[in-house]
Protein backbone atom coordinates (compact mmCIF):
# COMPACT_ATOMS: atom_id res chain seq x y z
CA UNK A 1 0.00 0.00 0.00
CA UNK A 2 1.43 3.36 -0.92
CA UNK A 3 1.58 6.50 1.15
CA UNK A 4 -1.22 8.31 -0.67
CA UNK A 5 -3.63 5.43 -0.12
CA UNK A 6 -2.91 5.53 3.60
CA UNK A 7 -3.47 9.30 3.66
CA UNK A 8 -6.75 8.69 1.85
CA UNK A 9 -7.82 6.03 4.33
CA UNK A 10 -6.99 8.29 7.28
CA UNK A 11 -8.99 11.18 5.83
CA UNK A 12 -11.98 8.92 5.15
CA UNK A 13 -11.77 7.45 8.67
CA UNK A 14 -11.79 10.95 10.16
CA UNK A 15 -14.73 11.91 7.94
CA UNK A 16 -16.73 8.88 9.00
CA UNK A 17 -16.08 9.58 12.69
CA UNK A 18 -17.00 13.22 12.21
CA UNK A 19 -20.18 12.29 10.35
CA UNK A 20 -21.27 9.68 12.90
CA UNK A 21 -20.51 11.75 15.98
CA UNK A 22 -21.49 15.10 14.46
CA UNK A 23 -23.75 15.89 17.41
CA UNK A 24 -20.90 15.57 19.88
CA UNK A 25 -18.26 17.20 17.72
CA UNK A 26 -20.13 20.28 16.50
CA UNK A 27 -19.74 22.94 19.22
CA UNK A 28 -22.66 25.12 18.07
CA UNK A 29 -26.16 24.75 16.75
CA UNK A 30 -26.09 24.71 12.94
CA UNK A 31 -29.23 26.73 12.32
CA UNK A 32 -29.22 29.41 15.02
CA UNK A 33 -28.68 32.70 13.25
CA UNK A 34 -27.34 35.78 14.99
CA UNK A 35 -26.73 38.82 12.83
CA UNK A 36 -24.67 40.47 15.57
CA UNK A 37 -22.12 37.67 15.12
CA UNK A 38 -21.97 37.56 11.32
CA UNK A 39 -18.70 37.39 9.35
CA UNK A 40 -16.57 36.62 12.42
CA UNK A 41 -13.08 35.45 11.47
CA UNK A 42 -11.81 32.07 12.72
CA UNK A 43 -11.19 32.14 16.49
CA UNK A 44 -11.00 29.75 19.43
CA UNK A 45 -14.77 30.09 19.87
CA UNK A 46 -15.60 29.69 16.16
CA UNK A 47 -12.81 27.60 14.64
CA UNK A 48 -13.83 28.30 11.04
CA UNK A 49 -15.50 31.66 11.78
CA UNK A 50 -19.15 32.50 11.13
CA UNK A 51 -21.13 33.02 7.94
CA UNK A 52 -23.37 35.83 6.66
CA UNK A 53 -26.10 35.03 9.19
CA UNK A 54 -23.79 34.37 12.14
CA UNK A 55 -23.91 30.56 12.02
CA UNK A 56 -20.85 28.61 13.11
CA UNK A 57 -19.09 27.36 9.98
CA UNK A 58 -17.16 24.57 11.73
CA UNK A 59 -20.38 22.99 13.01
CA UNK A 60 -21.96 23.27 9.58
CA UNK A 61 -18.97 21.69 7.86
CA UNK A 62 -19.15 18.84 10.42
CA UNK A 63 -22.82 18.18 9.68
CA UNK A 64 -22.12 18.63 5.98
CA UNK A 65 -19.87 15.56 6.14
CA UNK A 66 -22.92 13.59 7.20
CA UNK A 67 -24.93 14.68 4.13
CA UNK A 68 -22.04 14.04 1.74
CA UNK A 69 -21.23 10.58 3.05
CA UNK A 70 -24.88 9.62 3.29
CA UNK A 71 -25.55 10.57 -0.33
CA UNK A 72 -22.29 8.96 -1.44
CA UNK A 73 -22.95 5.67 0.34
CA UNK A 74 -26.54 5.30 -0.82
CA UNK A 75 -25.72 6.28 -4.40
CA UNK A 76 -22.72 3.96 -4.61
CA UNK A 77 -24.51 1.03 -2.94
CA UNK A 78 -27.64 1.28 -5.08
CA UNK A 79 -25.84 1.96 -8.37
CA UNK A 80 -23.30 -0.79 -7.71
CA UNK A 81 -26.07 -3.29 -6.94
CA UNK A 82 -28.15 -2.42 -10.00
CA UNK A 83 -25.07 -2.15 -12.19
CA UNK A 84 -23.73 -5.52 -11.03
CA UNK A 85 -27.03 -7.26 -11.69
CA UNK A 86 -27.47 -5.69 -15.12
CA UNK A 87 -23.85 -6.23 -16.10
CA UNK A 88 -23.84 -9.83 -14.85
CA UNK A 89 -27.05 -10.79 -16.62
CA UNK A 90 -25.97 -9.06 -19.81
CA UNK A 91 -22.53 -10.63 -19.80
CA UNK A 92 -23.69 -14.09 -18.76
CA UNK A 93 -26.65 -14.58 -21.06
CA UNK A 94 -25.42 -12.58 -24.05
CA UNK A 95 -27.83 -12.62 -27.00
CA UNK A 96 -30.56 -10.03 -27.26
CA UNK A 97 -30.40 -9.16 -23.55
CA UNK A 98 -26.79 -8.20 -24.00
CA UNK A 99 -27.52 -6.40 -27.25
CA UNK A 100 -30.14 -4.32 -25.47
CA UNK A 101 -28.11 -3.59 -22.34
CA UNK A 102 -24.65 -3.07 -23.77
CA UNK A 103 -25.53 -2.06 -27.31
CA UNK A 104 -28.37 0.27 -26.46
CA UNK A 105 -28.50 1.28 -22.80
CA UNK A 106 -24.74 1.76 -22.42
CA UNK A 107 -24.56 3.87 -25.56
CA UNK A 108 -27.50 6.02 -24.55
CA UNK A 109 -26.15 6.68 -21.06
CA UNK A 110 -22.66 7.39 -22.36
CA UNK A 111 -24.03 9.74 -24.97
CA UNK A 112 -25.60 11.89 -22.28
CA UNK A 113 -23.51 14.06 -19.99
CA UNK A 114 -24.28 12.62 -16.54
CA UNK A 115 -24.55 15.92 -14.73
CA UNK A 116 -26.95 17.26 -17.35
CA UNK A 117 -29.24 14.25 -16.97
CA UNK A 118 -29.23 14.68 -13.20
CA UNK A 119 -29.94 18.40 -13.54
CA UNK A 120 -32.76 17.74 -16.00
CA UNK A 121 -34.36 15.10 -13.79
CA UNK A 122 -34.21 17.18 -10.65
CA UNK A 123 -35.43 20.22 -12.60
CA UNK A 124 -38.61 18.39 -13.48
CA UNK A 125 -39.06 16.37 -10.28
CA UNK A 126 -38.26 19.28 -7.98
CA UNK A 127 -35.28 19.62 -5.62
CA UNK A 128 -34.75 17.41 -2.60
CA UNK A 129 -32.38 14.87 -1.08
CA UNK A 130 -34.26 11.75 -2.25
CA UNK A 131 -34.72 13.01 -5.78
CA UNK A 132 -31.06 13.93 -5.92
CA UNK A 133 -30.09 10.42 -4.83
CA UNK A 134 -32.47 8.91 -7.39
CA UNK A 135 -30.99 11.03 -10.19
CA UNK A 136 -27.42 10.14 -9.21
CA UNK A 137 -28.27 6.42 -9.11
CA UNK A 138 -29.84 6.61 -12.56
CA UNK A 139 -26.69 8.10 -14.03
CA UNK A 140 -24.39 6.02 -11.82
CA UNK A 141 -25.25 2.38 -12.49
CA UNK A 142 -23.88 2.26 -16.05
CA UNK A 143 -20.23 2.45 -15.01
CA UNK A 144 -20.61 -0.57 -12.73
CA UNK A 145 -22.62 -2.50 -15.30
CA UNK A 146 -19.97 -2.05 -18.00
CA UNK A 147 -17.24 -3.11 -15.63
CA UNK A 148 -19.03 -6.23 -14.41
CA UNK A 149 -20.16 -7.22 -17.89
CA UNK A 150 -16.56 -7.20 -19.08
CA UNK A 151 -15.45 -9.19 -16.05
CA UNK A 152 -18.23 -11.75 -16.42
CA UNK A 153 -17.42 -12.24 -20.11
CA UNK A 154 -13.88 -13.11 -19.04
CA UNK A 155 -14.63 -15.30 -16.01
CA UNK A 156 -17.42 -17.14 -17.86
CA UNK A 157 -14.81 -18.92 -19.97
CA UNK A 158 -12.75 -20.23 -17.04
CA UNK A 159 -12.48 -23.96 -16.47
CA UNK A 160 -14.18 -24.01 -13.10
CA UNK A 161 -17.29 -22.50 -14.67
CA UNK A 162 -17.31 -25.25 -17.29
CA UNK A 163 -16.83 -27.75 -14.47
CA UNK A 164 -19.76 -26.35 -12.52
CA UNK A 165 -21.90 -26.47 -15.63
CA UNK A 166 -20.88 -30.07 -16.28
CA UNK A 167 -21.93 -30.92 -12.73
CA UNK A 168 -25.40 -29.62 -13.56
CA UNK A 169 -25.35 -26.36 -11.58
CA UNK A 170 -28.16 -23.94 -12.39
CA UNK A 171 -27.54 -20.65 -14.20
CA UNK A 172 -28.23 -18.66 -11.04
CA UNK A 173 -25.81 -20.80 -9.05
CA UNK A 174 -23.08 -20.51 -11.67
CA UNK A 175 -23.57 -16.76 -11.95
CA UNK A 176 -23.84 -15.87 -8.28
CA UNK A 177 -21.66 -18.51 -6.62
CA UNK A 178 -19.01 -19.14 -9.23
CA UNK A 179 -18.69 -16.16 -11.55
CA UNK A 180 -19.56 -13.03 -9.57
CA UNK A 181 -17.24 -13.57 -6.58
CA UNK A 182 -14.40 -13.89 -9.08
CA UNK A 183 -15.50 -10.93 -11.15
CA UNK A 184 -16.26 -8.39 -8.48
CA UNK A 185 -12.80 -7.24 -7.42
CA UNK A 186 -12.47 -4.20 -9.70
CA UNK A 187 -15.85 -3.07 -8.41
CA UNK A 188 -14.16 -1.90 -5.21
CA UNK A 189 -11.99 0.50 -7.19
CA UNK A 190 -14.99 1.78 -9.11
CA UNK A 191 -16.96 2.18 -5.86
CA UNK A 192 -14.22 4.25 -4.29
CA UNK A 193 -13.96 6.52 -7.31
CA UNK A 194 -17.77 6.53 -7.38
CA UNK A 195 -17.86 7.92 -3.83
CA UNK A 196 -15.69 10.82 -4.98
CA UNK A 197 -18.00 11.38 -7.95
CA UNK A 198 -21.16 11.21 -5.86
CA UNK A 199 -19.83 13.65 -3.26
CA UNK A 200 -18.90 16.07 -6.05
CA UNK A 201 -22.24 15.71 -7.84
CA UNK A 202 -24.19 16.21 -4.62
CA UNK A 203 -22.28 19.40 -3.89
CA UNK A 204 -22.64 20.58 -7.49
CA UNK A 205 -26.39 20.03 -7.60
CA UNK A 206 -26.86 21.57 -4.16
CA UNK A 207 -24.76 24.50 -5.34
CA UNK A 208 -27.14 24.96 -8.28
CA UNK A 209 -30.07 24.86 -5.87
CA UNK A 210 -31.19 21.47 -7.18
CA UNK A 211 -30.00 19.24 -4.37
CA UNK A 212 -30.42 19.50 -0.65
CA UNK A 213 -32.39 22.70 -0.03
CA UNK A 214 -31.01 25.34 2.37
CA UNK A 215 -30.65 25.77 5.29
CA UNK A 216 -29.31 22.18 5.34
CA UNK A 217 -25.53 22.39 5.77
CA UNK A 218 -24.59 20.69 2.50
CA UNK A 219 -21.13 21.83 1.45
CA UNK A 220 -22.52 22.85 -1.94
CA UNK A 221 -25.19 25.00 -0.28
CA UNK A 222 -22.57 26.61 1.98
CA UNK A 223 -20.43 27.54 -1.01
CA UNK A 224 -23.42 28.96 -2.87
CA UNK A 225 -24.26 31.09 0.19
CA UNK A 226 -20.66 32.24 0.58
CA UNK A 227 -20.05 33.40 -2.96
CA UNK A 228 -21.98 36.66 -3.14
CA UNK A 229 -19.65 39.62 -3.30
CA UNK A 230 -20.38 41.12 0.11
CA UNK A 231 -19.81 37.77 1.87
CA UNK A 232 -16.65 37.14 -0.18
CA UNK A 233 -15.37 40.57 0.80
CA UNK A 234 -16.15 40.22 4.50
CA UNK A 235 -15.73 36.49 5.11
CA UNK A 236 -13.71 34.55 2.51
CA UNK A 237 -13.38 31.78 5.12
CA UNK A 238 -17.07 30.99 4.60
CA UNK A 239 -16.06 29.82 1.11
CA UNK A 240 -12.67 28.33 1.89
CA UNK A 241 -13.55 25.84 4.63
CA UNK A 242 -16.39 23.99 2.89
CA UNK A 243 -14.25 24.13 -0.27
CA UNK A 244 -11.37 22.43 1.53
CA UNK A 245 -13.79 19.85 2.94
CA UNK A 246 -15.03 18.92 -0.54
CA UNK A 247 -11.53 18.83 -2.02
CA UNK A 248 -10.15 16.66 0.80
CA UNK A 249 -13.04 14.21 0.59
CA UNK A 250 -12.80 13.87 -3.18
CA UNK A 251 -9.03 13.58 -2.99
CA UNK A 252 -9.20 10.92 -0.28
CA UNK A 253 -11.58 8.66 -2.20
CA UNK A 254 -9.53 9.13 -5.37
CA UNK A 255 -6.35 8.17 -3.48
CA UNK A 256 -8.02 5.05 -2.14
CA UNK A 257 -9.38 4.15 -5.57
CA UNK A 258 -6.01 4.60 -7.26
CA UNK A 259 -4.23 2.71 -4.50
CA UNK A 260 -6.65 -0.21 -4.69
CA UNK A 261 -6.33 -0.32 -8.45
CA UNK A 262 -2.57 -0.59 -8.17
CA UNK A 263 -2.88 -3.18 -5.44
CA UNK A 264 -5.28 -5.32 -7.46
CA UNK A 265 -3.37 -4.93 -10.71
CA UNK A 266 0.33 -5.39 -9.93
CA UNK A 267 1.29 -4.62 -13.54
CA UNK A 268 0.49 -0.99 -12.87
CA UNK A 269 2.68 -0.77 -9.80
CA UNK A 270 5.86 -0.04 -11.68
CA UNK A 271 4.45 3.04 -13.41
Amino acid sequence: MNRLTIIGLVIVAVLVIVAVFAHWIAPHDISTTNLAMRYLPPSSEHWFGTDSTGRDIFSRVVFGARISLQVGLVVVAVSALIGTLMGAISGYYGGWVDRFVSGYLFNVFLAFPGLLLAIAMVAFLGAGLNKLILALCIIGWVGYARLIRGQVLKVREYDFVQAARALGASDARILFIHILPNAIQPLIVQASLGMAGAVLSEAALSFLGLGVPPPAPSWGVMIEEARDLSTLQAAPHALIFPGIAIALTVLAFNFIGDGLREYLDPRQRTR
Partner: protein
Amino acid sequence: MKTKLRHSILGGLRRVLILLLVVWTVVSLVTLLIELVPGDPAVAILGEQATPEQFAQFREKHGLDRPPFFFSFPRDTNGERHFVWHGADNRYTDYWAALLRGDMGRSFRNDRSVKDLIFERYPATIELAIFAMLIAILIAIPLGVIAGTNRGTLIDNAASVIALLGISLPSFVIGPMLVYVFAVKLRWLAPSGRFEWSDIILPAFTLGAALSAILTRMVRSSVIEELGEDYVRTARAKGLNERTVVYKHVLKNGLIPVVTILGLQLGVLLAGAIITEKIFGWPGLGLLLVEDGIGKRDYRVVQGCVLVISMTYIIANLLTDMVYRWLDPRIRVS
Protein backbone atom coordinates in the same frame (compact mmCIF):
# COMPACT_ATOMS: atom_id res chain seq x y z
CA MET B 1 -10.14 -6.44 -49.76
CA LYS B 2 -13.79 -6.96 -50.59
CA THR B 3 -14.63 -8.43 -47.20
CA LYS B 4 -12.72 -5.63 -45.54
CA LEU B 5 -14.80 -3.06 -47.39
CA ARG B 6 -18.02 -4.84 -46.49
CA HIS B 7 -16.84 -5.00 -42.93
CA SER B 8 -16.23 -1.29 -42.70
CA ILE B 9 -19.56 -0.47 -44.35
CA LEU B 10 -21.41 -2.71 -41.91
CA GLY B 11 -19.48 -1.16 -39.03
CA GLY B 12 -20.37 2.30 -40.27
CA LEU B 13 -24.05 1.38 -40.63
CA ARG B 14 -24.06 -0.04 -37.14
CA ARG B 15 -22.64 3.17 -35.74
CA VAL B 16 -25.19 5.27 -37.61
CA LEU B 17 -27.98 3.04 -36.28
CA ILE B 18 -26.74 3.40 -32.71
CA LEU B 19 -26.46 7.13 -33.20
CA LEU B 20 -30.04 7.37 -34.44
CA LEU B 21 -31.24 5.25 -31.51
CA VAL B 22 -29.38 7.46 -29.07
CA VAL B 23 -30.80 10.64 -30.59
CA TRP B 24 -34.30 9.17 -30.57
CA THR B 25 -33.95 8.20 -26.91
CA VAL B 26 -32.59 11.56 -25.85
CA VAL B 27 -35.38 13.45 -27.60
CA SER B 28 -38.00 11.08 -26.17
CA LEU B 29 -36.59 11.47 -22.68
CA VAL B 30 -36.61 15.23 -22.96
CA THR B 31 -40.16 15.16 -24.31
CA LEU B 32 -41.45 12.88 -21.60
CA LEU B 33 -39.51 14.48 -18.73
CA ILE B 34 -42.14 17.19 -18.57
CA GLU B 35 -44.61 14.53 -17.43
CA LEU B 36 -42.50 14.12 -14.29
CA VAL B 37 -43.46 17.58 -13.08
CA PRO B 38 -45.45 17.11 -9.90
CA GLY B 39 -48.86 18.69 -10.32
CA ASP B 40 -49.88 20.82 -13.25
CA PRO B 41 -47.31 22.93 -15.14
CA ALA B 42 -50.04 25.48 -15.87
CA VAL B 43 -50.57 25.99 -12.12
CA ALA B 44 -46.82 26.22 -11.58
CA ILE B 45 -46.56 28.98 -14.19
CA LEU B 46 -49.77 30.96 -13.69
CA GLY B 47 -50.18 30.45 -9.95
CA GLU B 48 -53.16 29.22 -7.97
CA GLN B 49 -55.10 32.48 -8.42
CA ALA B 50 -55.47 32.29 -12.21
CA THR B 51 -58.98 31.87 -13.59
CA PRO B 52 -60.09 28.60 -15.20
CA GLU B 53 -60.22 30.43 -18.56
CA GLN B 54 -56.59 31.49 -18.18
CA PHE B 55 -55.60 27.91 -17.37
CA ALA B 56 -57.51 26.56 -20.36
CA GLN B 57 -56.02 29.16 -22.67
CA PHE B 58 -52.49 28.44 -21.43
CA ARG B 59 -52.92 24.68 -21.82
CA GLU B 60 -54.32 25.02 -25.30
CA LYS B 61 -51.60 27.40 -26.44
CA HIS B 62 -48.79 25.08 -25.31
CA GLY B 63 -50.53 21.87 -26.27
CA LEU B 64 -50.82 20.77 -22.65
CA ASP B 65 -54.51 19.94 -23.09
CA ARG B 66 -53.59 17.08 -25.39
CA PRO B 67 -52.82 13.53 -24.23
CA PRO B 68 -49.18 13.11 -23.26
CA PHE B 69 -48.41 9.91 -25.16
CA PHE B 70 -49.91 7.32 -27.52
CA PHE B 71 -51.81 5.82 -24.61
CA SER B 72 -52.55 6.66 -21.00
CA PHE B 73 -54.20 5.23 -17.92
CA PRO B 74 -56.53 7.98 -16.69
CA ARG B 75 -58.72 7.51 -13.62
CA ASP B 76 -62.45 7.31 -14.21
CA THR B 77 -65.08 8.73 -11.85
CA ASN B 78 -64.77 5.68 -9.58
CA GLY B 79 -61.05 6.24 -9.24
CA GLU B 80 -60.12 3.19 -11.28
CA ARG B 81 -57.52 3.35 -14.03
CA HIS B 82 -58.30 2.31 -17.58
CA PHE B 83 -56.18 1.92 -20.67
CA VAL B 84 -56.97 4.56 -23.28
CA TRP B 85 -55.48 4.63 -26.78
CA HIS B 86 -55.03 8.15 -28.17
CA GLY B 87 -53.34 7.34 -31.46
CA ALA B 88 -50.92 9.68 -33.15
CA ASP B 89 -52.75 12.74 -31.89
CA ASN B 90 -50.64 13.37 -28.78
CA ARG B 91 -48.02 15.66 -27.25
CA TYR B 92 -45.17 13.28 -27.96
CA THR B 93 -45.78 13.31 -31.70
CA ASP B 94 -46.50 17.06 -31.54
CA TYR B 95 -43.06 17.68 -30.09
CA TRP B 96 -41.38 15.47 -32.67
CA ALA B 97 -43.26 17.02 -35.57
CA ALA B 98 -42.35 20.50 -34.35
CA LEU B 99 -38.71 19.52 -33.81
CA LEU B 100 -38.40 18.19 -37.34
CA ARG B 101 -39.52 21.62 -38.53
CA GLY B 102 -36.84 23.13 -36.28
CA ASP B 103 -39.35 24.41 -33.75
CA MET B 104 -38.77 23.85 -30.03
CA GLY B 105 -41.96 25.46 -28.83
CA ARG B 106 -42.50 28.77 -27.08
CA SER B 107 -41.35 29.86 -23.67
CA PHE B 108 -44.02 29.37 -20.99
CA ARG B 109 -43.01 32.71 -19.50
CA ASN B 110 -42.44 35.29 -22.19
CA ASP B 111 -43.88 33.61 -25.26
CA ARG B 112 -40.63 33.85 -27.20
CA SER B 113 -39.51 31.03 -29.46
CA VAL B 114 -37.26 28.66 -27.49
CA LYS B 115 -35.11 28.22 -30.57
CA ASP B 116 -34.36 31.96 -30.67
CA LEU B 117 -33.66 32.07 -26.95
CA ILE B 118 -31.21 29.20 -27.27
CA PHE B 119 -29.37 30.37 -30.33
CA GLU B 120 -28.96 33.83 -28.83
CA ARG B 121 -27.07 32.20 -25.96
CA TYR B 122 -25.30 29.39 -27.80
CA PRO B 123 -22.30 31.41 -29.10
CA ALA B 124 -21.39 32.54 -25.57
CA THR B 125 -21.23 28.93 -24.35
CA ILE B 126 -19.19 27.75 -27.33
CA GLU B 127 -16.83 30.68 -26.87
CA LEU B 128 -16.40 29.79 -23.20
CA ALA B 129 -15.82 26.09 -23.92
CA ILE B 130 -13.24 26.83 -26.62
CA PHE B 131 -11.34 29.31 -24.46
CA ALA B 132 -11.42 26.84 -21.56
CA MET B 133 -9.99 24.17 -23.80
CA LEU B 134 -7.28 26.50 -25.12
CA ILE B 135 -6.27 27.46 -21.59
CA ALA B 136 -6.23 23.80 -20.58
CA ILE B 137 -4.00 22.87 -23.55
CA LEU B 138 -1.68 25.81 -22.97
CA ILE B 139 -1.18 24.73 -19.37
CA ALA B 140 -1.21 20.97 -19.81
CA ILE B 141 1.16 20.35 -22.72
CA PRO B 142 4.21 22.23 -21.38
CA LEU B 143 3.53 21.09 -17.81
CA GLY B 144 3.01 17.47 -18.84
CA VAL B 145 6.08 17.41 -21.08
CA ILE B 146 8.28 18.97 -18.40
CA ALA B 147 6.97 16.54 -15.78
CA GLY B 148 7.34 13.54 -18.09
CA THR B 149 10.86 14.35 -19.25
CA ASN B 150 11.96 15.07 -15.69
CA ARG B 151 10.29 12.04 -14.19
CA GLY B 152 10.70 11.61 -10.44
CA THR B 153 12.25 15.02 -9.87
CA LEU B 154 10.95 17.89 -7.78
CA ILE B 155 9.45 19.52 -10.90
CA ASP B 156 7.55 16.33 -11.69
CA ASN B 157 6.17 16.09 -8.17
CA ALA B 158 5.16 19.75 -8.16
CA ALA B 159 3.33 19.28 -11.47
CA SER B 160 1.54 16.23 -10.06
CA VAL B 161 0.40 18.17 -7.00
CA ILE B 162 -0.94 20.99 -9.17
CA ALA B 163 -2.75 18.46 -11.35
CA LEU B 164 -4.21 16.74 -8.30
CA LEU B 165 -5.52 20.05 -6.98
CA GLY B 166 -7.13 20.80 -10.31
CA ILE B 167 -8.91 17.45 -10.28
CA SER B 168 -10.16 17.55 -6.72
CA LEU B 169 -11.19 21.20 -6.54
CA PRO B 170 -14.58 21.52 -8.25
CA SER B 171 -15.35 24.54 -10.41
CA PHE B 172 -17.78 25.95 -7.89
CA VAL B 173 -14.90 26.23 -5.41
CA ILE B 174 -12.23 27.42 -7.85
CA GLY B 175 -14.55 29.98 -9.46
CA PRO B 176 -15.55 31.91 -6.33
CA MET B 177 -11.95 31.75 -5.10
CA LEU B 178 -10.76 33.35 -8.35
CA VAL B 179 -13.48 35.97 -7.96
CA TYR B 180 -12.22 36.65 -4.43
CA VAL B 181 -8.60 37.05 -5.50
CA PHE B 182 -8.91 38.81 -8.86
CA ALA B 183 -12.18 40.73 -8.51
CA VAL B 184 -12.60 41.44 -4.80
CA LYS B 185 -9.00 41.78 -3.59
CA LEU B 186 -6.90 42.80 -6.59
CA ARG B 187 -9.78 44.38 -8.54
CA TRP B 188 -8.14 43.41 -11.84
CA LEU B 189 -11.15 41.71 -13.39
CA ALA B 190 -14.91 41.96 -13.16
CA PRO B 191 -16.61 39.37 -10.94
CA SER B 192 -19.30 38.55 -13.50
CA GLY B 193 -20.89 39.41 -16.81
CA ARG B 194 -19.77 39.42 -20.44
CA PHE B 195 -18.94 42.96 -21.48
CA GLU B 196 -15.16 43.40 -21.79
CA TRP B 197 -12.89 40.96 -23.63
CA SER B 198 -11.16 40.28 -20.30
CA ASP B 199 -14.39 38.98 -18.78
CA ILE B 200 -13.79 35.55 -20.28
CA ILE B 201 -10.50 34.97 -18.42
CA LEU B 202 -11.89 33.88 -15.05
CA PRO B 203 -14.75 31.71 -16.38
CA ALA B 204 -12.53 30.04 -18.97
CA PHE B 205 -9.86 29.30 -16.38
CA THR B 206 -12.46 27.95 -13.96
CA LEU B 207 -14.00 25.70 -16.58
CA GLY B 208 -10.63 24.58 -17.94
CA ALA B 209 -8.93 23.87 -14.61
CA ALA B 210 -10.13 20.29 -14.23
CA LEU B 211 -9.43 19.55 -17.89
CA SER B 212 -5.91 20.95 -17.69
CA ALA B 213 -5.26 18.72 -14.68
CA ILE B 214 -6.51 15.61 -16.46
CA LEU B 215 -4.55 16.52 -19.59
CA THR B 216 -1.35 17.20 -17.68
CA ARG B 217 -1.46 13.70 -16.21
CA MET B 218 -2.18 12.19 -19.62
CA VAL B 219 0.53 14.10 -21.44
CA ARG B 220 2.97 13.14 -18.70
CA SER B 221 2.27 9.42 -18.86
CA SER B 222 2.14 9.51 -22.67
CA VAL B 223 5.53 11.18 -22.81
CA ILE B 224 7.00 8.67 -20.35
CA GLU B 225 5.61 5.78 -22.37
CA GLU B 226 6.75 7.10 -25.75
CA LEU B 227 10.23 7.98 -24.49
CA GLY B 228 10.83 4.26 -24.03
CA GLU B 229 9.98 3.42 -27.66
CA ASP B 230 12.50 2.34 -30.26
CA TYR B 231 11.90 5.27 -32.58
CA VAL B 232 13.07 7.61 -29.85
CA ARG B 233 16.36 5.75 -29.67
CA THR B 234 16.62 5.96 -33.47
CA ALA B 235 15.91 9.67 -33.45
CA ARG B 236 18.49 10.26 -30.75
CA ALA B 237 20.99 8.05 -32.59
CA LYS B 238 20.48 10.19 -35.69
CA GLY B 239 21.87 13.00 -33.61
CA LEU B 240 18.67 15.01 -33.21
CA ASN B 241 18.73 17.25 -30.21
CA GLU B 242 16.50 16.34 -27.28
CA ARG B 243 14.12 19.20 -27.95
CA THR B 244 13.32 17.97 -31.46
CA VAL B 245 13.00 14.41 -30.19
CA VAL B 246 10.51 15.41 -27.52
CA TYR B 247 8.43 18.00 -29.33
CA LYS B 248 8.51 16.58 -32.85
CA HIS B 249 8.50 12.84 -32.32
CA VAL B 250 7.35 11.99 -28.83
CA LEU B 251 4.65 14.61 -28.55
CA LYS B 252 3.18 13.80 -31.95
CA ASN B 253 2.63 10.18 -31.00
CA GLY B 254 1.84 10.91 -27.41
CA LEU B 255 -0.97 13.27 -28.36
CA ILE B 256 -3.20 10.59 -29.87
CA PRO B 257 -4.83 9.60 -26.58
CA VAL B 258 -4.91 13.25 -25.61
CA VAL B 259 -7.01 14.12 -28.66
CA THR B 260 -9.61 11.56 -27.64
CA ILE B 261 -9.82 12.96 -24.17
CA LEU B 262 -10.06 16.48 -25.57
CA GLY B 263 -13.00 15.55 -27.76
CA LEU B 264 -14.79 13.66 -25.02
CA GLN B 265 -14.11 16.54 -22.68
CA LEU B 266 -15.62 19.09 -25.05
CA GLY B 267 -18.97 17.57 -24.19
CA VAL B 268 -18.11 17.55 -20.49
CA LEU B 269 -17.08 21.20 -20.79
CA LEU B 270 -20.45 22.09 -22.29
CA ALA B 271 -22.24 20.37 -19.43
CA GLY B 272 -19.82 21.79 -16.88
CA ALA B 273 -20.38 25.22 -18.35
CA ILE B 274 -23.75 25.18 -16.59
CA ILE B 275 -22.03 25.65 -13.23
CA THR B 276 -19.35 28.04 -14.48
CA GLU B 277 -21.91 30.21 -16.23
CA LYS B 278 -23.90 30.42 -13.04
CA ILE B 279 -20.85 31.45 -11.01
CA PHE B 280 -19.86 34.22 -13.40
CA GLY B 281 -23.26 35.24 -14.75
CA TRP B 282 -21.94 34.27 -18.18
CA PRO B 283 -24.96 34.57 -20.49
CA GLY B 284 -24.75 31.17 -22.20
CA LEU B 285 -26.95 28.11 -22.47
CA GLY B 286 -26.18 27.00 -18.93
CA LEU B 287 -27.40 30.24 -17.42
CA LEU B 288 -30.48 30.09 -19.65
CA LEU B 289 -31.13 26.56 -18.38
CA VAL B 290 -30.56 27.28 -14.69
CA GLU B 291 -32.02 30.77 -14.31
CA ASP B 292 -34.66 31.20 -17.00
CA GLY B 293 -35.53 27.52 -17.33
CA ILE B 294 -35.28 25.81 -13.95
CA GLY B 295 -35.41 28.95 -11.81
CA LYS B 296 -38.61 30.23 -13.40
CA ARG B 297 -40.00 26.76 -14.03
CA ASP B 298 -40.14 27.44 -17.75
CA TYR B 299 -40.18 23.78 -18.76
CA ARG B 300 -40.11 24.44 -22.51
CA VAL B 301 -36.84 26.30 -22.09
CA VAL B 302 -35.46 23.45 -19.96
CA GLN B 303 -36.43 20.93 -22.64
CA GLY B 304 -34.79 22.98 -25.38
CA CYS B 305 -31.56 23.55 -23.43
CA VAL B 306 -31.20 19.91 -22.41
CA LEU B 307 -31.83 18.85 -25.98
CA VAL B 308 -29.31 21.24 -27.53
CA ILE B 309 -26.61 20.54 -24.92
CA SER B 310 -27.00 16.76 -25.37
CA MET B 311 -26.95 17.01 -29.14
CA THR B 312 -23.78 19.09 -29.02
CA TYR B 313 -22.29 16.49 -26.71
CA ILE B 314 -23.25 13.64 -29.04
CA ILE B 315 -21.87 15.44 -32.08
CA ALA B 316 -18.63 16.30 -30.26
CA ASN B 317 -18.18 12.63 -29.37
CA LEU B 318 -18.90 11.55 -32.93
CA LEU B 319 -16.32 13.97 -34.32
CA THR B 320 -13.78 12.79 -31.74
CA ASP B 321 -14.32 9.23 -32.79
CA MET B 322 -13.74 10.16 -36.42
CA VAL B 323 -10.59 12.17 -35.70
CA TYR B 324 -9.29 9.34 -33.55
CA ARG B 325 -9.80 6.80 -36.33
CA TRP B 326 -8.08 9.09 -38.79
CA LEU B 327 -5.12 9.65 -36.46
CA ASP B 328 -4.57 6.03 -35.58
CA PRO B 329 -5.15 3.73 -38.57
CA ARG B 330 -4.79 0.63 -36.37
CA ILE B 331 -8.27 1.27 -34.98
CA ARG B 332 -9.80 1.47 -38.45
CA VAL B 333 -8.89 -2.12 -39.15
CA SER B 334 -9.86 -3.68 -35.86
